[in-house]
């Protein structure tokens, strides 16, 4: 009888322990799930959900005796600053979320970054490339994508090395990070004796860029540089061919093959360069990248966009930081752990650690930069571009 009572008590204790061990941790995603920026935001949200499922399948996040299963709450911020602020307020105030991921686009991200420091939450920024996001010394914010000017400078060097002296720029230049990419590009081009002969702009919703391209054609450039979202960029590449512009086309877009082929033919895309962080491209991907591409494609029936792993990697960085901090409640401890984090084994992007850490003192992570070229229907990694993460990190620390 005594044995039975002991056994019953043991089973009860064990089941209580098992029950206590299985907890749910809500994590939020604020991203552009619809609208023009959904080409970046939706794949990011999908990537977070996929990473969360993988983490859950592997037993969740271990904090002490507890195992936390991740539950993703995603809101559509349409890449709009007001919508993003509302989404994050809902996540924090209504859903009680402490960890918010996603953030593909700089305007919306900047709006949230302006108030996140005063919140009991950690913000993990993905594809948004505006430099100022990580110059504000916000302790509870980190970003997986390097700033645009870090890549722009590398692109300028590459184009100058190709021998181009007169480069025409066509871009979404009223968007801050695209303008900063071009500024950094120009600085390096000028050093090599080249120049930007015109800066033509377009709106993110514009699809007819033939007037600007006609003007560029008359200026007889050696090359053109296109900076902007995938869709307008794809129209520019197509319309440049239609107008008979036969000079090398360089870009900063981070679009997948599938996204470009919705607008332009493979023939119209042939030879186009994309000068960007070394994001996911199947032909150059690491083992993790190949697995990510396969799993994502199977799960969502579409290939992942090259920039989507920024959000996938956020999720694993958060997991490691929570496990390292040993808490899901002490947000400051998790934020601090993120800054001390080594690059997790599961990430897809190929990060360049600064002083052995994934994020530098500004909360900024760096990947290498790469030159990709469209060859026979695919983006092909051609070569690395100059990527001195430590030097850029020091420079970033000097900016107010």
């Amino acid at each position: 009888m005594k044995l039975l009572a002991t056994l019953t008590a043991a089973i009860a204790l064990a089941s209580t322990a098992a029950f206590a061990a299985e907890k749910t941790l809500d994590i939020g995603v604020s991203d552009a799930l619809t609208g023009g920026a959904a080409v970046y935001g939706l794949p990011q949200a999908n990537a977070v959900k996929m990473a969360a499922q993988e983490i859950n399948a592997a037993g969740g996040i271990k904090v002490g005796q507890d195992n936390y299963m991740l539950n993703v709450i995603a809101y559509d911020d349409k890449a709009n600053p007001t919508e993003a602020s509302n989404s994050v307020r809902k996540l924090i105030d209504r859903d009680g979320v402490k960890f918010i991921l996603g953030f593909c686009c700089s305007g919306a991200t900047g709006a949230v970054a302006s108030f996140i420091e005063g919140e009991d939450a950690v913000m993990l920024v993905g594809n948004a490339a505006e430099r100022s996001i990580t110059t504000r010394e916000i302790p509870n914010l980190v970003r997986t994508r390097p700033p645009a000017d870090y890549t722009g400078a590398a692109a300028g060097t590459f184009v100058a090395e190709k021998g181009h002296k007169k480069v025409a720029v066509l871009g979404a230049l009223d968007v801050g990070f695209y303008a900063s990419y071009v500024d950094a590009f120009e600085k390096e081009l000028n050093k090599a004796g080249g120049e930007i002969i015109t800066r033509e702009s377009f709106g993110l919703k514009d699809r007819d860029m033939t007037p600007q391209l006609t003007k560029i054609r008359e200026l007889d450039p050696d090359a053109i540089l296109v900076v902007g979202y995938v869709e307008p960029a794809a129209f520019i590449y197509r319309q440049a061919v239609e107008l008979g512009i036969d000079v090398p086309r360089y870009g900063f877009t981070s679009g997948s093959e599938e996204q470009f082929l919705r607008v332009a033919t493979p023939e119209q895309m042939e030879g186009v360069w994309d000068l960007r962080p070394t994001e996911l491209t199947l032909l150059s991907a690491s083992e993790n990248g190949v697995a990510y591409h396969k799993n994502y494609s199977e799960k969502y029936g579409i290939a992942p966009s090259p920039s989507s792993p920024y959000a996938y990697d956020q999720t694993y960085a958060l997991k490691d930081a929570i496990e390292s901090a040993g808490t899901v409640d002490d947000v400051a401890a998790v934020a601090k752990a993120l800054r001390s984090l080594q690059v997790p084994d599961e990430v897809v992007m190929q990060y360049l650690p600064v002083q052995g850490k994934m994020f530098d003192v500004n909360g900024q992570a760096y990947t290498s930069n790469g030159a990709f070229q469209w060859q026979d229907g695919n983006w092909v990694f051609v070569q690395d571009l100059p990527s001195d993460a430590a030097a850029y990190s020091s420079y970033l620390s000097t900016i107010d």
Partner: protein
Amino acid sequence: MIEILQQIINGVAIGGVYVLIALGLTTVFGILGIAHFAHGSVSMFGGYLTFFLVVTWGLPLFAAILIAIVVGLVLGVLIELLAYRPVRHASHINAFIVALGLTMMVEGLNLEFFGHEQVVIPTDLSRVFEIGGVTIPELRLYVIIAAAVLIGAMTIFVEKTKTGQAIRAVAQNRDAAILMGVNVNTIPIVVFSISTALGVCAGVMVGSLFAIAPGIGEGLVVKGFAVLILGGLGSIPGAVVGGLVLGITEALAAGFISSAYKDVIAFLAMILVLLVRPQGLMGKA
């Protein structure tokens, strides 16, 4: 000189689309006095439908366009009978509110049926012609030709057929038209059918030249009304001239001044025209 000619050619293609949108709007407004805001969304529906028929069903482009036009004709009948006819004798504000509601409804249906992603109608028309240094992509050439044919057909229909004469009679004097034996109940149906079919054609052109996505229809209808005001309310020649002027002005402004202000410059040109001719370029004083 070549640059100016090239910009004009660029502007004529987009101007042709504006003309088709404005033709649909001007017939509805001129004859029925309705500001049919849903016209842009209906155009996008036509573009989406064509995309769906080509990509999902694998129909040839021309067959898909024909089906979309027929669907547009039927849709026009339904819009008139179900949305506008019940408020025909009510205050103008009722039709105005119906128009706004219809816009949201059609936008919502487009989103529900076709999703939020941008789509481009595949055409296989990728050749480029060059005449004296001016390049004309094959697709743009076909768009210009198709717009010209539709404008011509519309003009012949309105000017030369009995139904067209009846439409003009109702537009000029509804009471007199009734006395002359015109069936004024069927005229709005015909007008909406034709207007919607023209809108569908414009949607196909936008979808193949550029892209169809949520929100594009709204921008298009704003341009359509601008053309209406520029050309003269209710005037078919005015819609043609106004559409081409707007398209070419946009292209020249983007090419020679700044693409960032192309809409501003185009609308400034419109205001200037109205200061000189308040009735529009082809409107009657």
